[in-house]
């Protein structure tokens, strides 16, 4: 069997997960290039929520959600802590009939897969789960105790280790300086340490950097950045006193982080035409902490005052700004491009941890066997050219 040599640029959740799935094929020779550390940057700033039902990913992609969730559960079973699972459960609040219908469908899918899930309209019962919530102006809430959030950095490192065990290689602290293309065909790449590699495929897994990575092969990768502005809140009294579930509203989500609460504006509520929400910036200039905008404080205060008043007077422990990579339809870009052998696995936006396993499974199959799946057709680069 002919060997296929694949170079992956980016060691976040996208690159490591794809590297692992490729390494399951005997004839794959995989090298992941990461300029910093594995699972850093936007992966490290990800909330890592993989909920059985919420509006982050349409129910038509249920199998993507389930494959991701069960991949990480399996990882945890193999080695506890390797996916950083915190099983807090999830409360998804129905603010209108449309959201309610989405939640109910999601619950039915979760139950069919063997998980628990219920749609609760009893307001007292909702407050039992999350005492700090306001149940005014809501229709009900979907709840499961089976899910929670994972740790994107842990997962990336676990995938990297598993890939290395299968014969793959990881180069950290190495920047890709040139992607070699001849006659619109990939030949390999060069790195900042002076090395020159030959590859059959080069995969862009650089997420927020994809616009710049694409320029190395003369491509305009249609990625926008949406701001993921997150705050860590220390609840009044400095102790929650109950298991704070992943809390999902259409406009924001929250989860526990130790004794604190992580809270962030949801990526689907971002407006690509609003310069306060979206633009094309340089992710290298992002500070490690801070950098949030004043508008976000106003937004969050308004939301918490009416939605979760019990935590509105929490102390602000820290904050950060991250850039999500989003195409205009908020779905990933997977697969081939006009440059033969140049593959995209980017644009996961706020859903990288959820979508990477299923997307990587299908993309690995395409690279190694040339098979296209419905998911790859849905998330193909060419859809954005129409």
């Amino acid at each position, binding site marked *: 069997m002919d060997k296929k040599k694949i170079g992956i640029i980016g060691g976040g959740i996208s690159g490591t997960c794809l590297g692992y799935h490729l390494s399951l094929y005997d004839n794959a020779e995989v090298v992941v290039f990461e300029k910093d550390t594995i699972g850093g940057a936007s992966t490290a700033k990800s909330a890592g929520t993989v909920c059985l039902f919420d509006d982050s990913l349409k129910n038509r992609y249920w199998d993507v959600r389930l494959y991701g969730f069960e991949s990480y559960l399996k990882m945890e079973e193999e080695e506890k802590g390797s996916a950083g699972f915190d099983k807090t459960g999830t409360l998804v609040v129905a603010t209108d009939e449309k959201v309610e219908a989405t939640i109910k469908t999601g619950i039915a899918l979760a139950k069919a897969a063997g998980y628990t899930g219920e749609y609760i309209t009893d307001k007292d019962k909702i407050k039992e789960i999350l005492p700090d919530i306001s149940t005014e102006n809501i229709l009900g809430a979907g709840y499961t105790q089976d899910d929670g959030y994972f740790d994107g950095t842990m997962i990336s490192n676990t995938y990297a280790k598993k890939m290395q065990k299968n014969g793959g290689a990881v180069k950290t602290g190495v920047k890709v300086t040139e992607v070699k293309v001849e006659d619109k065909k990939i030949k390999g790449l060069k790195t900042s340490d002076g090395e020159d590699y030959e590859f059959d495929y080069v995969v862009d897994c650089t997420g927020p950097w994809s616009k710049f990575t694409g320029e190395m092969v003369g491509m305009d990768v249609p990625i926008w950045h949406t701001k993921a502005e997150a705050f860590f809140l*220390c609840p009044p009294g400095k102790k929650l006193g109950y298991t704070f579930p992943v809390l999902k509203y259409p406009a924001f989500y929250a989860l526990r982080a130790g004794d604190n609460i992580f809270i962030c504006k949801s990526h689907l509520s971002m407006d690509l035409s609003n310069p306060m929400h979206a633009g094309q910036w340089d992710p290298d200039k992002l*500070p490690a902490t*801070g950098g949030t905008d004043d508008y976000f*404080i106003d937004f969050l205060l308004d939301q918490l005052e009416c939605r979760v008043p019990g935590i509105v*007077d929490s*102390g*602000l422990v820290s904050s950060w700004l991250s850039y999500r990579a989003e195409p205009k339809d908020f779905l990933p870009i997977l697969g081939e491009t006009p440059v033969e052998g140049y593959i995209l696995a980017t644009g996961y936006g706020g859903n990288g941890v959820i979508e990477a396993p299923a997307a990587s499974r299908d993309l690995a199959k395409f690279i190694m066997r040339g098979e296209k799946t419905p998911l790859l057709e849905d998330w193909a680069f060419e859809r954005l050219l129409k």
Partner: protein
Amino acid sequence: MNIAVLIKQVPVSNDVSVDPETHALVRATSEGMINPADLNAIEAAMVLKEQTEGKVVVFTMGPPDAEKALRDAMAMGCDESCLITDRCLAGGDTIATAKVLAESIGRYGTFDLILSGALSADGATGQVGAMVAEYMGIPHVAEIQGFAYDESAAGSILAVKKFQGMEFKIKAALPALMSVCFGCNEPRLATLRTKRAAKSKPLEVYTNAELGMAADEIGLEGSPTDVTDSFEPESTRKAQMLSGTPDELARKLKELIEIEKGKE
């Protein structure tokens, strides 16, 4: 009691190097935060304010983006702030900085107490507070842990200092300046509400047009300090990775500890 708090914006990143020619600190990023010991000074001021009423005004000298540090301080509860910013003030040493701060405080209003952090996280000279007191001609107590406030003792305050395991109470006539140790209290956190409120709290900006200080008193020209050298300390420490089962690791560790003991 009206209290002034002097704060400094320091770099968030530890990635600081030294310029080989000017010996100045070169920061990897411009992102700043309130100097940690200054947060303790703010907390001490807030506690006193709650006991005595009055107001807390926070002062900083720095570039225009130091406004963020002032807004953060006001989000912690400080009532007003003053940003002293002018290109001609840049490059000032501790003496030039202290002169400008003293002038600004005097110009702003009358204060019973002035607090600063004991040390900055970047320069760590610990000099500015004492120098401001000197230029203002008021008493100074360095590196205090807090206050023992006595309502009946008008016109004075008891500062608490710790030294070699002992606690001292030092009485100072007001107005006075005191520098507050890092870690002596737990600074309160801002909340979303106080963050929003801080955006509309008063912030006065002073340039040298308002201060009217002579060119040879401020900035580089007003700085007698000559930095002849600064360097990063050489690290001679080396890490050794051990591998093996827990029992093997414990045995190896014991052996290594015995070897190190033998070196003493």
